[in-house]
């Protein structure tokens, strides 16, 4: 796997959020998902920038929805992982687990073999 196919930390969060949200992943839901789970402030600008970068790598694709059925409702840009993106996420997650294996890092874990 070339260097461009590895995921940076925030990219990994983004891919995990997309994987978790499925078909309802758009700017607001992705931002809130990462912010709530990591406790780290996330800006909408960073979300769109990272999604664009992942899109350039071929990991993410998007579709434009019909306008939301509320007064003044606008279209949303929904994102999802591509097959290539899912493989990259699995690869990164596997590497992460391999690196963590045997370390007492997660709260409540037994740790060590």
């Amino acid at each position, binding site marked *: 796997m070339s260097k461009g196919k590895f995921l940076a930390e925030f990219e990994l969060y983004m891919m995990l959020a997309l994987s978790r949200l499925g078909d309802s992943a758009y*700017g607001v839901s992705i931002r809130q998902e990462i912010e709530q789970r990591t406790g780290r402030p996330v800006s*909408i*600008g*960073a979300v769109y*920038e990272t999604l664009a970068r992942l899109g350039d790598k071929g990991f993410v694709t998007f579709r434009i929805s019909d306008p939301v059925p509320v007064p003044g409702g*606008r279209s949303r840009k929904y994102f999802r992982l591509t097959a290539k993106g899912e493989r990259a996420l699995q690869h990164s997650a596997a590497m992460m687990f391999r690196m963590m294996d045997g370390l007492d890092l997660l709260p409540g874990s037994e740790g060590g073999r």
Partner: protein
Amino acid sequence: MTTTPPRFPQWIISLLVVPDDRGFLISDLAEEFDSIVRLRGISAANRWYWLQMMRSAVPCLRRRVKAIVRRKIPTFQGLPEGKTTMQRRLSNLFETTIGDIRYGFRCLLKSPVFTVVAVLSLALGIGANTAMFSMINVLLLRQLPAKDPGRLVLFIPIAPHSDGFNMPYPVMERLRKDGKSFDSVFASAGATSFRLDATGAGNAGKGEIMRAEGVSGGMFAVLGINAIIGRTLSEDDDRQNNPNPVAVISYNLWKTKFGLDPSVLGKSITIDDEIITIVGVAPPAFTGVEVGSVSDVWYPIWMMAKTPNGAARFTRFSSWWITMLGRLKTGVSIKQGQAEIDVIYHQMLVEQAGPAFNKASADAQAEYLNRRIELQPGGAGFSRLRKKFAQPLRTQKRRSFLLRH
């Protein structure tokens, strides 16, 4: 309740974000803003929006710049895999630069005292340099809003009775008649203060203080400046005992006193007991030929002959009171114009001295004939202040340059 996000941060974000995402990102922000308003109130929502704007600025800008770079460099497009060397280098350069800027800001925030001192020093330095440049620009660089200002010339007398600008009216008439190097020349008596009575009722001495300038009828034609409404002065307006004196007013006077009313043409104003008809309005950029002196009214210089002993000033060689500008003919250089003036002025000096010239000692003759009129570029108008400050300003400009480098 319908609430709208604060406009300024929304405007900043919409400037920074790439056009493809602009609508979606702004819409996402508005959606979250609405939900925060419902849950925590408008103040909290506004704070949240501002914070989002500040945190989003760098990523949005980074992406925008990347998109521009990608669009401008064709080698970025249509590549099957990976990055080109140039793309990689530019990308690295960009990332490094942004990283450096962020690091710089963090360092500044960690040392607030140093930051305040540095910012104040910079502000003072920039302010002082800006003020200096503004002064240099006004006094030395800015050109008159004239047609082809490069061909305008100033006539600078080198003579004991002149203040460095003023000269006798007959010299102007002679140069206008005999000067072959010039399309035309004109005189200005400089702006003087008067009380403007805009009612046309002849109430001399009443009204606001304004500045009026007596000028040759051909001034506007020589400068190539047209009136924005009506007409400018003509040679025909500028004659002795003209029964229908006319004037051109400045755009500023038209705006402040007449409310930009086009029917100002034909109205009368009073200057020194003289009722004058307005025939035109000068363009906004033109405020006179003397730098630092703003005129509100231009009237024919021959009107000044009506003042006590006024007429004598137009014929006496010993009255030094007008400043003079002219336009060189196309293809004629200042050097050629100077050579012609030297000859004409020398003749005038000899003619004026009359028989007394031959009786004078050789030293007195040489000193008398040493008087001359010097031609100088006149595109920037004339300025007594410039003469006074030109050298100190140039020195200061050089000093600032040396200090900066």
